[in-house]
């Protein structure tokens, strides 16, 4: 074997060191001694958890879980795995207590109760906020890291995994490379956990997505993806980032068209106006722009002075942002800003059972790499779900690994996979940034990702197929940094094809998915998932119906019905 290849061996390999990966590692150690986390970002950076505010969805004592589930079924327009969601809510209480036991501070009201923030105009769902403001995610990262160090969990940064290796049907490890040296790496493992996030399109709101996720890893290993037609679409000032719109809107902020009209309240959303998921606001932004009433601006003039005073950033990156914008002559609270939609992350994910197991023996997925969301979001759910799924998947993957001998490992195949990938190094060709933009141009067309239609999706499918066949093979990586970026770009193109194919397969509108050619729910069938897998090297989709008979709530009311898109 090539002497340059570093060969490691572990019981449980976890790909991704965000909060889901850290929870998985913590619990896997109950069953096995040797757990290894690798992350393509810097060592211990903590993934998107470290950039979050640390808000956490948890029903406290006295809250009725069924009320919360009812909110979610309503918000998701019936497209909710009710068993799984109910279990998540119940376990959220345990994980919340775990965080407190690790020393985490959640915010309290003057009367001692937990401080919570209502979400998306829903009656029951509330996120419990962390204290101090702006530090919650960093604190969670530190607390989890302390726990992992005490358990001697092995951790490595700047390692990119490029391919999962199998022994027969079961996973036996992975190959990858160090992103700053290009040194190849083989990791043998009894179980492998995808804790990568599912990825997205590398646009940035206030948080980074370094991720291209695990779409290629999962598909090449034979796992299935679910709900890939759903994406998180945010809106943002055109030139800079600003966080906190969900707080500013209730204080009196509004989206206005070029005629100065509050188009959400006046027309599209007469009940809750723009106090909803960004996805519904951006739908209206597109319709207004198409009708010649763009650009869309964010109006803060009705926020009272005490409201502005409470929201003027006082710390962290937002303080820097505010100060620097003012130096450029931009005051967020006195000027009117043009806002635009921005697609961020895929919300589909790897199909798993309730313990994170995929259809590939020994391969697990956790956190946002799992499929849970349907295009609409409430704050704090990803951190909650990372903790609950990380906890249970860690136990399951650890138990699986402890019951197995180390699988045989096909070094020849692994080496060939590495050779193929490292062959990009030092080559001349198309650079990753150009490819990112090219792929983004496909998916940011408003009729591909916001008001979808068969015609636009078909054209986009042709384009992404062309990109994958005729541009991707000519990509290059002058050094190993760019090799990492190349693989992310390629993953983004693969993710985009999965997004478009799944969008074509859902011939109705529901939750975060809107089809102009099918603007209503398909009431002729039970709700279904769109599941995507690789067959003979091609992506195929099929429907899997939700077992509504087994669910406690039979949906009769739907969040989408309060909007008017005609």
């Amino acid at each position, binding site marked *: 074997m090539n*002497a340059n290849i*570093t060969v490691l061996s572990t019981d449980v390999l976890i790909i991704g060191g965000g909060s889901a990966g850290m929870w998985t590692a913590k619990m896997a150690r109950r069953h096995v001694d040797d757990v*290894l986390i690798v992350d393509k*970002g*810097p*060592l211990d*950076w903590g993934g998107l958890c470290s*950039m979050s505010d640390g808000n956490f969805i948890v029903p406290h004592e006295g809250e009725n879980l069924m009320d919360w589930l009812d909110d979610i079924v309503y918000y998701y327009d019936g497209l909710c795995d009710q068993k799984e969601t109910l279990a998540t809510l119940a376990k959220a209480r345990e994980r919340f207590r775990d965080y407190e036991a690790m020393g985490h501070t959640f915010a309290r009201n003057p009367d001692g109760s937990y401080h919570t923030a209502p979400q998306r105009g829903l009656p029951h769902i509330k996120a419990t906020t962390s204290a101090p403001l702006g530090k919650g995610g960093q604190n969670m990262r530190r607390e989890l890291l302390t726990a992992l*160090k005490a358990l*001697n969990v*092995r*951790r*490595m*940064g*700047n*390692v990119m995994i490029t391919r999962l290796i199998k022994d027969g049907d079961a996973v036996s490890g992975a190959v990858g490379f*160090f*992103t*700053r*040296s290009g*040194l190849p790496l083989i990791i043998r493992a009894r179980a492998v956990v995808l804790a990568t996030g599912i990825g997205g399109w*590398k*646009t*940035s709101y*206030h948080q*980074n997505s*370094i991720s291209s996720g695990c779409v290629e890893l999962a598909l090449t290993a034979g796992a299935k993806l679910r709900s890939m037609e759903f994406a998180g*679409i945010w809106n943002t000032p*055109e*030139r*800079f*980032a600003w966080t906190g719109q969900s707080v500013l809107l209730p204080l009196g902020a509004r989206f206005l068209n070029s005629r100065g009209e509050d188009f959400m309240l006046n027309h599209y959303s007469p009940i809750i106006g723009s106090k909803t998921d960004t996805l519904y606001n*951006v739908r209206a*932004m*597109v319709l207004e*722009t198409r009708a010649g009433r*763009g*650009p869309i601006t964010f109006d803060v003039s009705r926020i009272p002075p005490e409201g502005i005073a409470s929201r003027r950033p006082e710390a*962290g*990156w937002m303080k*820097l*942002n505010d100060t*620097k914008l003012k130096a*450029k002559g931009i005051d967020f609270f006195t000027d009117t800003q043009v806002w*635009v*939609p*921005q*697609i961020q992350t895929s919300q589909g994910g790897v199909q798993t059972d309730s313990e994170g197991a995929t259809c590939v023996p020994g391969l697990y997925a956790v956190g946002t790499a799992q499929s849970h969301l349907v295009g609409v979001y409430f704050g704090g759910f990803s951190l909650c779900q990372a903790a609950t799924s990380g906890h249970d998947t860690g136990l399951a993957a650890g138990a699986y690994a402890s019951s197995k001998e180390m699988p045989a490992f096909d070094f020849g195949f692994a080496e060939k996979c590495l050779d193929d990938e490292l062959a990009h190094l030092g080559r001349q060709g198309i650079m990753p*940034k150009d490819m990112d*933009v090219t792929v*983004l*141009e496909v998916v*940011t*067309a*408003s009729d591909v*990702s*916001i008001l979808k239609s068969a015609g636009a999706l078909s054209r986009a499918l042709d384009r992404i197929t062309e990109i994958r066949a005729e541009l991707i093979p000519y990509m290059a990586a002058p050094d190993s*940094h760019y090799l*990492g*970026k190349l693989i992310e770009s390629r993953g983004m193109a693969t993710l985009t094809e999965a997004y478009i194919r799944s969008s074509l397969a859902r011939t109705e509108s529901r939750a975060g998915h809107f089809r102009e050619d099918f603007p209503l729910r398909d009431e002729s069938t039970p709700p279904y998932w769109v599941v995507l897998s690789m067959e003979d090297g091609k992506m195929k989709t099929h429907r899997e119906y939700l077992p509504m008979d087994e669910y406690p709530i039979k949906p009769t009311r739907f969040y989408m019905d309060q909007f008017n898109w005609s």
Partner: protein
Amino acid sequence: MISSIDEEKCTGCGSCVKTCALDVFRLDTRNEKIAPCMAACPARNDLREIHYLLQQSRLDEALDCLKLTMPFPALAGRLCRRPCERPCSRHALDESVNIGGIETFLGDRDLARALSPVPRRHIFKAAVIGAGIAGLSAAWYLTKSGFPVTVFEAGEKAGGHLRSDSVCASIIDIYAAQLQAMGAELRLECRFPLTGPSWREELEDLDFRAIVIAAGSELKGKTPCGLELSDSGRIKVDPHTFQSSVRTVFAVGDAALDNASDVLSMVSGRRAAQAVGNILQGANADMGMHVRLHTVASRDVSGMEQRSPHPAGSDGSLTLEGTLEESLRCLTCGSRAYIAYPEDCMTCFACETHCPAGAIDVDPFKEFHPRHLDRRFIGGRK
């Protein structure tokens, strides 16, 4: 997007390199001012560069860099009393970097390397008398430079006094084998009669044009014929070149030094090898060998984040991931950060909020990405 780094303010601690999730930054470690650890290192290992290479997982390059000044890191990591760790800037912050543990890890990687013969670049041969670590060090650097070298060792095996330690003995055996694989000749159980009247002539008859005496303390008081002695009865040498009173004869290790540490013995071998190379090419022994005066980079650690040491094994050893983590604790004192991959910045401000020196400026305007509403594309608007 990332705008600039103020070179005057940047201390090179690498906070940006260690925290940027998009991998935008790199360090320039070249600086006239050396790091405090390097100033304390008897071998003057380029620890700043070695640690920075490890921070990038460039394992073999880090080892190659260490080998420029330290021939046998697997021994040095275990034997050195680590004066480098005392002035480590991190000491003021939490705990010094485990520099010795890192060196031992690299040393063990060194032992596992398969070495191929070094192409012969020179015609004139050198003899090394004594295969303790001083002699082996001289032989290693001479061989590496392409000189034909023969080592004469009276004992059954190489290693000198270190053979009394079983771990060191087994390491020496590997290094001796590597030296032979590189092309050096090792003649064991071959006592060279240094005290005889005509030892130099005998060596010259064998076509050796330079001689490095590394025969240890046993020569003390027994003058090899024709060489001047120091006050303490050892062979008198120039402190920089280890050249004796005879131009072609050098002495290293305990043969020349009082109370030489193992590390200093290796250093003397390295320096003598360089001087031998000089004279074998007709130059003065000290060509290019004067120790440059140096200044030491600042040890200011205000505002820097704590990072606890990676726990070492019971024998002080570090694993691969432990070594990589420990290297990230190094503040690479005296380096300068630069923006290596500006197009990958996503304007998260993490570098600027983490920079303890306040040297980084991020522009709040973000990159032009294609946006929805079909109106905002790259280059679409100033």
